[in-house]
């Protein structure tokens, strides 16, 4: 009997796992598949919709999951979640002895509450704990250009698998905010049901207090994070976000480190931040670096903006993406080969797809040097071809308000 019930669940789980890989890889010619995959999580779909005040296509799937989970406890975890399936199998190989955590409070639901409240303030603080985004992230490894990026994109899932080996299913049962959210949906539905059918039982006061604390913490964290994010952008010179990025005060919160944009970039110029650019709050969020040979933000591509599940990168059409300002190219004439009379070089002028760089002749200085005009989008085409080393004479810098 139990055997019969278990087999179909495993089959469904395996099918969903394979389906998840197919969507994220992406094997399909459906460019936005990785985005839809992450949006299936009602935790992501709801929080990001609240934070961005907009509705995306993925919310349809998220609603189905939410409704189903409210009727069958942890339905998503048991059947659909690829992370859960992976960890379940890892736990079979692991020690599984440790069960000290069985008395641990259900952290996941408070994480969910904290995040939902902070989403109202525009900065969903712990949204990066969503299991689907953690599952999606390591697929960006094939676009990682250095070891640090490899480590960063696989950090989430790697940590969970290691923890599961030692502690068993601690994550899924107690910490995962998506399972916590499902629990809440289930008990809310049940409470509603009971209230409608019988007399109302009183809720536990302790739980209500925790909810209050979690919500307050979320609101405070969101306000604080938005202030530091805005300050960071004002002081940084080298922080460049992928095209379509929302303003920096909200970006590090809305971005859930799914690394879909890293994965989608054909130029391999998007990579997870080590915290060097945007501090601890921005750890793992995508930044742009023009250090891959001859690769820049192509005028024929808007892939990264299409795969972001939370709207941290606004989905932009090609034309709009080509008008999005990533940063501004500035020339250091103390390095430029042309300005210094070192060589016949007009690499930046030739490379610019937007006609934004011109080498001008200055009759006053009696010298020639590149000048960047307002058409510059910061795509980096000039920077990647600039032949000076180790410092390039023309580089893209964080855009400063005039």
């Amino acid at each position, binding site marked *: 009997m139990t055997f019969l019930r278990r087999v179909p669940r495993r089959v469904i789980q395996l099918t969903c796992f394979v389906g998840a890989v197919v969507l994220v890889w992406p094997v399909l010619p459906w460019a936005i598949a990785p985005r839809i995959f992450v949006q299936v999580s009602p935790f992501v779909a709801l929080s990001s919709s609240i934070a961005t005040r907009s509705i995306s296509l993925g919310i349809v799937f998220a609603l189905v999951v939410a409704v189903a989970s409210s009727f069958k406890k942890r339905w998503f975890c048991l059947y659909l979640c690829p992370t859960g399936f992976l960890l379940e199998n890892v736990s079979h190989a692991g020690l599984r002895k440790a069960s000290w955590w069985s008395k641990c409070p259900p952290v996941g639901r408070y994480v969910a509450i904290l995040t939902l409240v902070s989403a109202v303030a525009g900065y969903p603080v712990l949204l990066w704990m969503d299991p689907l985004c953690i599952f999606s992230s390591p697929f960006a490894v094939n676009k990682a250009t250095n070891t640090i990026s490899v480590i960063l994109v696989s950090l989430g899932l790697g940590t969970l698998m290691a923890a599961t080996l030692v502690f068993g299913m601690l994550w899924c049962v107690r910490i995962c905010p998506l399972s916590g959210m499902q629990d809440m949906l289930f008990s809310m539905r049940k409470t509603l049901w009971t209230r409608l059918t019988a007399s109302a039982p009183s809720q536990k006061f302790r739980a209500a207090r925790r909810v209050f604390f979690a919500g307050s913490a979320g609101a405070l964290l969101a306000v604080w994070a938005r202030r530091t994010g805005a300050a960071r952008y004002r002081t940084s*010179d080298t922080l460049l976000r992928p095209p379509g990025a929302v303003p920096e005060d909200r970006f590090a919160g809305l971005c859930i480190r799914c690394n879909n944009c890293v994965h989608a970039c054909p130029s391999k110029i998007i990579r997870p931040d080590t915290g060097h650019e945007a501090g601890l709050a921005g750890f793992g969020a995508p930044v742009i670096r023009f250090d891959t040979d*001859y690769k820049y933000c192509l005028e024929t591509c808007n892939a990264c903006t299409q795969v972001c599940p939370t709207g941290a990168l606004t989905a932009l059409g090609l034309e709009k993406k080509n008008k999005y300002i990533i940063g*501004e190219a*500035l*020339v*250091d*004439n*103390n*390095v430029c*080969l*042309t*300005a*210094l*009379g*070192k*060589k*016949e*070089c*007009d*690499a930046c002028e*030739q*490379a610019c797809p937007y006609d934004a760089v011109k*080498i001008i*002749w*200055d*009759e006053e*200085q*009696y*010298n*020639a*040097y590149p*000048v*960047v005009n307002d058409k510059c989008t910061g795509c980096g085409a000039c920077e990647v*071809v600039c*032949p*000076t*080393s*180790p*410092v390039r*004479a023309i580089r893209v*810098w964080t855009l400063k308000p005039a």
Partner: protein
Amino acid sequence: MSKDLTRRELMRRSIAAGGLFAAGSLVPVSSTPANQAAGQSTTQAGTRVPATIVDGKVVQPRRELPVFQKTSILVVGGGPAGTAAAFSAKRLGVDVTLVERYGYLGGLATGGLVLGIFPLYDRSGKQVIFGIGEELMKKLDVLKFGIIDRNKAPTYPTIDAEAFKYVLADMVLDSGITAYLDCWGVDAIVDAKGAVRGAVFESKSGRQAILADIVIDASGDGDIYAAAGAAFEKVKTNIGLISRIGNIDEVDMAVGRGSEDPEHPATGKPGAGRPSKGRVNDLNGHAGNSTPAPHMNWLNMKGPVGDALDIADLTAMELKHRRGTWGNVEKLRQKPGNEQVYLAETAPQLGVRLSRLLGGVKKLTVQEIRSGAKFKDVIGYSGAYANAPEFQIPYGSLVPSKIENVLAAGRCISADFEVADITRLIPVCWVTGQAAGLAAALCIQDKCKPRNVNVAKLQNLLHQQGAYLG
């Protein structure tokens, strides 16, 4: 009264010459029957006919030009392309005559002070230009202060202008090439069928003709093919003037060799601050590139856009560039450590980059070089230049689309503007020069026209002379 006298005098002479022509210089000599009276007047000293004024117009009477020499191959221009053409052709045992406008050989590589031998390498740093150019550099290798930074990709070699003038003079003297310096090739000689039969040049000896079976136009400006009526495109681009500055070692030893070299960073402070928008810097202590001569940098100048075929533009550049260079060196001296910097020389020749581009059998386009196009009639490679990868140059780019018996070499070959902006550079001129020289020699040996040259044979010869064809 003087006008009347002039007219009477002119009438008398022109009746003797058999007619009046408004533009005597354009009359093909070979189609003119030799006239006894005119022949006498041009061969006798002091009886040459000056230009005169007829009805308010300055006219040059028709006259016969002395044939200074008859040769198999005439190379007009003794720059990198012209000398490479002459050397390679002469090695096949063909009679070669070279005329050069200035008093030395090497063109822009010596007189223009374009000392950087660039672009020489492909994207990976492998040298893709050999042949005559490599031979010349090998001769410089053994000279003290002859050449630096050989085989140090991506840093390109830098030559010394005087060393290179010496090498070329030495080679020409020993090669058996008939060379005439201080000769300005000014016109083509075209037969009744429109085929080129030689060229006219001016010198202290006056206006003279050299008859040749094949003319290689390595004049840079395509003066000869243009005069012969070949199709061409006229382009305008920046014209600069290179200079050399001395006593610059104290501030520049680490950086002079081109900041592409990771071992010699461009600035003492890598990653030094954010440049302000539109800031204009004076030249600072890192100006120019080091040369084989100690304590000496060569300093490139982009210059403003000008018409290289307009003498007013050229004159303005010659004057303003020298004034501007002097001013820049004065500014340079104001930087600490640079107090003793001096202007050693400005280049004798203006840095004319492009003027005429041949309308050839094949026009090499930027799309082709960016996509790595391969040609059956490849005659050599250009190295990678900034955004463009290394690329093949087809023989068709040297051959005019219609006119016979003339080949282009150097910066005036058939290519679109973007490509010509690369093929104009020194080592690429060696490549097209060598190919043009060998093709011309094949025309003589096989008694064929340049457009009918056996390309396989040409490529074989190029291989034998050490050229790289991929």
